[in-house]
């Protein structure tokens, strides 16, 4: 399972999230997509199977910037970290149809458990890997 990490700005949330990804998927190659172009290129690579995209938005514009390329997220499960709880931010976030919407001030325990569950179910033949 591919884990794609998009983080336009290097900050403390990014480091914490990287630790979460590494703890759930030790084989993660550690690449962080910094721009929409990097992310698009990564998503356009053929996937072996299901992919998960962790999208860390530092501001609402980061989420809005992802909307034009939302087609590329087909067959990809999105975990979105929104920068704030403003109505407009949340409305933009839901347009990406994330499997989990959380916020950058969280402890990311929710990201850890959701990521771990998706991966475990995917590897378990009796798990709910499908949609």
């Amino acid at each position, binding site marked *: 399972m591919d884990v794609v990490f998009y983080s336009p700005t290097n900050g403390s949330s990014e480091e914490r999230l990287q630790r979460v990804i590494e703890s759930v998927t030790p084989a993660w190659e550690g690449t962080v997509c910094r721009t929409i172009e990097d992310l698009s290129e990564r998503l356009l690579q*053929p996937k072996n199977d299901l992919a998960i995209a962790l999208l860390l938005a530092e501001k609402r514009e980061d989420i809005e910037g992802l909307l034009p390329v939302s087609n590329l997220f*087909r067959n990809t499960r999105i975990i979105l970290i929104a920068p704030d709880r403003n109505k407009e931010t949340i*409305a933009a976030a*839901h347009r990406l149809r994330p499997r989990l919407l959380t916020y950058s001030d969280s402890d990311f325990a929710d990201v850890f458990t959701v990521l771990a*569950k998706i991966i475990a179910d995917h590897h378990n033949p009796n798990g*709910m890997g499908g949609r």
Partner: protein
Amino acid sequence: MAHILIIDDDPIVCETISHIVKHLGHEAITAHSLQEGIEKVSSEAVDVVLLDVQMPDGNGLEAVPGIRKAPSSPEIIILTGYGDADGAELAIKNGAWDYLEKPSSRQQISLTLTRALQYRQQKGAIKPAEAIKREGIVGNSPQMRDCLDLVAQAAKGDANVLITGETGTGKELFALAIHNNSRRANSSFVVVDCAALPKNLVESVLFGHEKGAFTSADRAQEGLIRQADGGTLFLDEVGELSPSVQKSFLRVLQERRFRPIGGKEEIKSDFRLIAASNRDLDELVRRQQFREDLLFRLRTFAIELPPLRERLEDIKELVRHYIAQLAEEHGQQAKDLSPEFMDLLARYPWPGNVRELVHALERAFAAAPGEPTLYPKHLPTNIRTQLARTSIRKKAAPAVVPAERRGGDPTSPTFATLQEVREAALVDVERQYLKDLIERTEGDIQQACLTSGLSRSRLYSLLKKYGISTAT
């Protein structure tokens, strides 16, 4: 005035129903064989077809898909034998509007016909499927058109919708299409992935929580139900909800109000609910793993999506759509598709449905950089090898396994596996048994069911599998 086609080999039945049809003010057309009926429905505008099952030139049920594809897409009423519950069920599953037991009273025929015509009239008044925003739903097979008609109907109201279908059939796209064609389109479409959320997280994600509600709740959190206010809440894989959350959610559905975890006051949320599942929720109810009252509420309006293998005619359009999309995304010219490539795609059973097809196309596209045409070699190896194996197995497993293949040199590459021998023997025995059964019962399906102990639907399915006609 509507046009009603009666397909029955019995001239008395045709005459009787024609009389009723004319009395209702409609025009009756008759056909005494399936072939004649199919020709008439293909060349004339027909609103309703009354179709007999037992026809001299075949089984009426097998003609249903073909009749539904006719230019006027008529409604179909099946004429079944008296007390034939299996035949009736099979008729409905095959896409018939309704069924009538023979003999039926004049009143029953009139009522069923009138209802079918009313339905047809209302369907015509509904926004046609082509006029709705499809949200990437590709295909124009009768099954897809039916589903899109249901999307249009669901979008007009606020009723709870349950979308079922195998993994990869596009349940979320259909849910999104309902939302985007509804009055709620300008508000949020909020996804709750019940399969991705661990049990300990679902409740807090759905209902939200107050600060200090539990150990890690260091700030208040709004739940997804609240965020769906004014819009649509999409519960994906709803069969995964735990019993306690099912109970809590049932109350939310009834009252459209809820209390966040640790909260003192109830919050209202005006959301429209769409749920989806790839599991048999009725079976989960029987196993007491899903609440019957919740299922009843979820299923106010139901849409069942067909697997891709049941709408193979959509594959060409799906392939062209996604290849064009991939070309645009990669900044390349659209690629041509060789006939062999298309043939292979049409022969593969697609257990993962459209999602698997899209995966395969992505890989094929990536495997042919700079090449103008896609060939089978560009497809993923697992698909090509499975088809090759199936093809070889078909050739290698004759109806009767030759004696020399039951023994001989076990190291020979042509020596069959035990599984192949078993399968071949079973096919042979089943085919011969069914031939004997039909001959012995002189094609009387009811008698054949009694003799064989098979249900009518199972018997029809086996007869179809082996290409055996009931006409003796």
